[in-house]
C-alpha cells in the first residue's frame, strides 16, 4: 500500500508548484508537442524529410544520441564520491544527478528511435520473440547497456527515496552492490557507444583506439558542466541547500577532464596531420574543408574556441572559484562539447564516403524540431523527477499511514 501512496504522493508533488513552475512545464510541453507533430510528418513521409542521404546516413539525431549518452554516464561522478567516499554533501544531491541520468538515457534512446526507418518493427529486437544479434552487433550491446542503465538509475533512487518516504533506514547491504554495478555500468554505456563508432574500419575517422577514452573524457567535462548549472538553478528556484563544496568538487573534475579531452584532440590532430594520409581526409574536411566543401569547419573552430576558453577559466583558481566565471565556463564547455562530439564526431565519419564522394549534410527543420522536442521532453522529465526527489529529500513528503494527505 505504501508503494502506491509513494507513487501517488510523488506524482502530486510533481504537479504542485507556483505559477512560474507551471509556466515552465507548459513551455516544455508545447515544445514536446511541436516535436511530436513534426515527427508525425517524418513518419508519414519517410526519412526523406531529413537532410540525411545514402552518403551521410546518420545525422543530427545520432549526434545528439552520442552526446547524451555521455551526459548520462557523468552521473557516476556524483555516485562515486557519494557512496564510495561517503561525502555527505554530495550524497545530498546524488539523487538529482541520477534523475539527470534517467532523463539523459531516455533522450538518448528516443534519438535512436526517431532515427529508425521502421520504428514499427522495434519488436524485432526483443530476444526470442524477435532476433537480437547479441553479442555480435555493437548496436545490440548499446541497447543492452542503455536499457540496463536506465533500470539501475530508476531502481536505486526509487528504493532510497521510498525508504526515506517511509521514514525507514535504507539497507546498505541491499543497495550498495547495485550502486557498484551502476558505477561500472556508467563507464560501459559510454565505452560501448564509442565502440559503436570505432568498430568500423570502413570509417577511418572513427577507427581509433582513442575514441573510447575521448568519449569518457569529454563526458566527464560536459556532464559536470550540466550538473553544476542545474544545481545552481535548483539552489535558486527550489530553496534547496546545495553546498558549495559539491560545486567545487565538480568544477575540479571538469577542469581535469577538459584538459585531458583537449590533449586527446591534440593527439588526434598531430597523428592525422603530421604525415597526412588518405585516412586523414575526414579530419581534414572537419577542420580545414575538403575540395571546397567546408560546412562543418566554422562549427569545429567555434567549438574549439569555446572549449579552450572554458579550460583557461577552469585552470585559473580564482576564476574557477568565482560563480559567474564558473557558470560561463560551464555553458561554454557544454556547447563546445555538444558540437565537438555531436555533429563534429558523427558527420565527418561519412565525409568523404568510402568511395571518395563528398556530399555534405545539414539538418532540416524536421530534424531540428524533433530534436528540440526530445530535449524538451528530457528537461520536462528531469524537472518532474527533481521536484519529487527534492521534496522527499527535504522531508516534505512522508508516508502518513492511513491519512489521506501527505505532510506538508
Amino acid at each position, binding site marked *: 500500500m505504501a508503494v502506491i501512496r509513494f507513487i501517488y504522493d510523488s506524482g502530486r508533488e510533481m504537479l504542485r508548484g507556483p505559477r512560474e513552475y507551471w509556466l515552465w512545464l507548459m513551455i516544455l510541453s508545447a515544445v514536446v508537442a511541436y516535436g511530436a507533430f513534426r515527427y508525425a510528418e517524418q513518419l508519414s513521409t519517410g526519412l526523406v524529410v531529413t537532410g*540525411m542521404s545514402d552518403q551521410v*546516413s546518420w545525422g543530427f539525431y545520432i549526434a545528439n544520441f552520442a552526446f547524451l549518452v555521455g551526459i548520462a554516464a557523468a552521473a557516476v561522478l556524483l555516485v562515486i564520491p557519494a557512496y564510495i567516499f561517503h561525502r555527505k554533501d554530495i550524497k545530498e544531491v546524488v539523487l538529482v544527478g541520477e534523475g539527470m541520468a534517467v532523463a539523459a538515457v531516455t533522450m538518448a534512446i528516443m534519438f535512436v528511435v526517431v532515427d529508425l*526507418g521502421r520504428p514499427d518493427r522495434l519488436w524485432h529486437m526483443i530476444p526470442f520473440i524477435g*532476433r*537480437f544479434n547479441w553479442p555480435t*552487433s555493437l548496436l545490440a550491446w548499446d541497447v543492452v547497456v542503455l536499457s540496463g542503465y536506465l533500470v539501475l538509475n530508476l531502481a536505486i533512487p526509487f528504493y532510497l527515496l521510498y525508504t526515506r518516504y517511509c521514514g525507514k533506514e535504507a539497507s546498505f547491504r541491499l543497495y550498495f552492490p547495485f550502486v557498484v554495478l551502476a558505477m561500472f555500468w556508467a563507464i560501459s554505456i559510454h565505452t560501448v557507444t564509442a565502440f559503436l563508432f570505432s568498430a568500423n*574500419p570502413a570509417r577511418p575517422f572513427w577507427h581509433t583506439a582513442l575514441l573510447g577514452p575521448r568519449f569518457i573524457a569529454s563526458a566527464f567535462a560536459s556532464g559536470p558542466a550540466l550538473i553544476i548549472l542545474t544545481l545552481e538553478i535548483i539552489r535558486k528556484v527550489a530553496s534547496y541547500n546545495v553546498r558549495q563544496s559539491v560545486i567545487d568538487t565538480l568544477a575540479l573534475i571538469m577542469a581535469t577532464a577538459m584538459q585531458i579531452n583537449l590533449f586527446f584532440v591534440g593527439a588526434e590532430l598531430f597523428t592525422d596531420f603530421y604525415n597526412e594520409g588518405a585516412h586523414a581526409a575526414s579530419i581534414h574536411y572537419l577542420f580545414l574543408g575538403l575540395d571546397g566543401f567546408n560546412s562543418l569547419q566554422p562549427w569545429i573552430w567555434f567549438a574549439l574556441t569555446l572549449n579552450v576558453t572554458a579550460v583557461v577559466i577552469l585552470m585559473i583558481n580564482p576564476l574557477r572559484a568565482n560563480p559567474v566565471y564558473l557558470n560561463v565556463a560551464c555553458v561554454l564547455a557544454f556547447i563546445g562539447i555538444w558540437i565537438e562530439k555531436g555533429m563534429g564526431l558523427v558527420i565527418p565519419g561519412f565525409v568523404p564516403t568510402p568511395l571518395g*564522394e563528398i556530399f555534405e549534410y545539414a539538418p532540416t527543420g524536421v530534424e531540428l524540431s524533433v530534436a528540440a522536442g526530445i530535449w524538451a521532453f528530457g528537461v520536462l522529465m528531469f524537472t518532474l523527477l527533481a521536484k519529487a526527489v527534492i521534496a522527499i529529500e527535504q522531508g516534505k513528503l512522508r508516508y502518513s499511514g492511513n491519512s489521506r494527505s501527505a505532510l506538508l
Partner: protein
Amino acid sequence: MSDKADSKEEKNKFEMARRSFLRGIGMSAAATAATPAWGGQTFSDAFADFFQKHYQRMSAEEIEEALERIERKASLRYGVKIDCANTPPQEGVVFGYAINISRCQGYRDCVDACVKENNLGRDSQVQYIRVLQMDRGDTNLEHSEHYYDPAEVPVEGKYYMPVQCMQCDDPPCVKACPVEATWMEPDGVVVVDYDWCIGCRYCMTACPYWARHFNWTEPEIPAEEMNPDTHFLGNRPRPRGVVEKCHFCLQRTRKGRLPACQEACPTGARIFGNLLDPDSEIRYVLANKQVFRLKEDLGTEPKFWYYSD
C-alpha cells in the same frame, strides 16, 4: 486496376505525378488512388505482415503465404502482377565476380540493366552499381568522378571502375545488424530480409564499399517498367524505410542465369560464376590473371575481383 482503360488512365496520371514529383514528397497520385488504407494492403495482409517472422524462421507454408502477400501487395500498389519466388541456393555453388578494368569503357549499361532488373526506385534513384571514372595512373578513390557525364565515353586519359556489393565472405554489415536482418546465404550472397530490417542503417556505416542503400522514401516504379520475375531475398518491391543492396541477381542466378549487369555489359568486362567449380570462367581468371581486390587490407574477404590485361 483490372479494367484496361482504367489502367491506362492510371498510368497517365502516374506519369504526370512522376514529373511533378518533388523529391519524395508523398506517394504519387496514382499509387494513392489505387491503394486502400493499411499501407497499400488489406487489413488482414497488413496484420500478417506486421507479425511476419524472420525469413529463416518461417515454415514452408509461412513463406508461401508471405510470397502471396507480396504478390497481392504489388498488384495493389503498382497495378502489376508479379511472381515472387523463393528459389533456394544451389548445392555446391558459391558465386564470385571479376571485372576486367581494361575492358570497361564506362558505358554504365550495367547500372541501367540493374535498375530495371532489380526494380530499383526510379524517383529515389537508388543504384546498386556505381561506375567510377578515374585518371589513368591514379587509384585514389577520392579522386574518382562519380557523376561523369561527357558527350562520349571512354574519355581520353581515364579508366573506369565499377563498384557494387563485394559479397564479402566476412561481411562487416552482417555483424553490425542488431536484428540479424542481413546474413550470408549458403551461395555466398549477402541478403536482406526487407520485412525484418528496422532501418537503423548501422550496416551502411559498417560497409567499406558504400554498397548499401536506404529507402528514404517509398520506392516508385512505373507499372510498365516493373520486372515481374522476383525473389523474396532479391528484387521484389521493397517497402520504405529499409536497407537494400546488390544480391547478385538471386532471382536469375539461382536459376542458372547470369546477373543482369553481366548480361548487359557490351565489352565483356564482367566475369561471373561459381567459385567452387574448377572449370568455371571465374576460376580461370583467378588462376591466370593478375587480380586484386578493393580495400583488401580491411580483411572483409570480398568475393569480387578486379584485373586488367
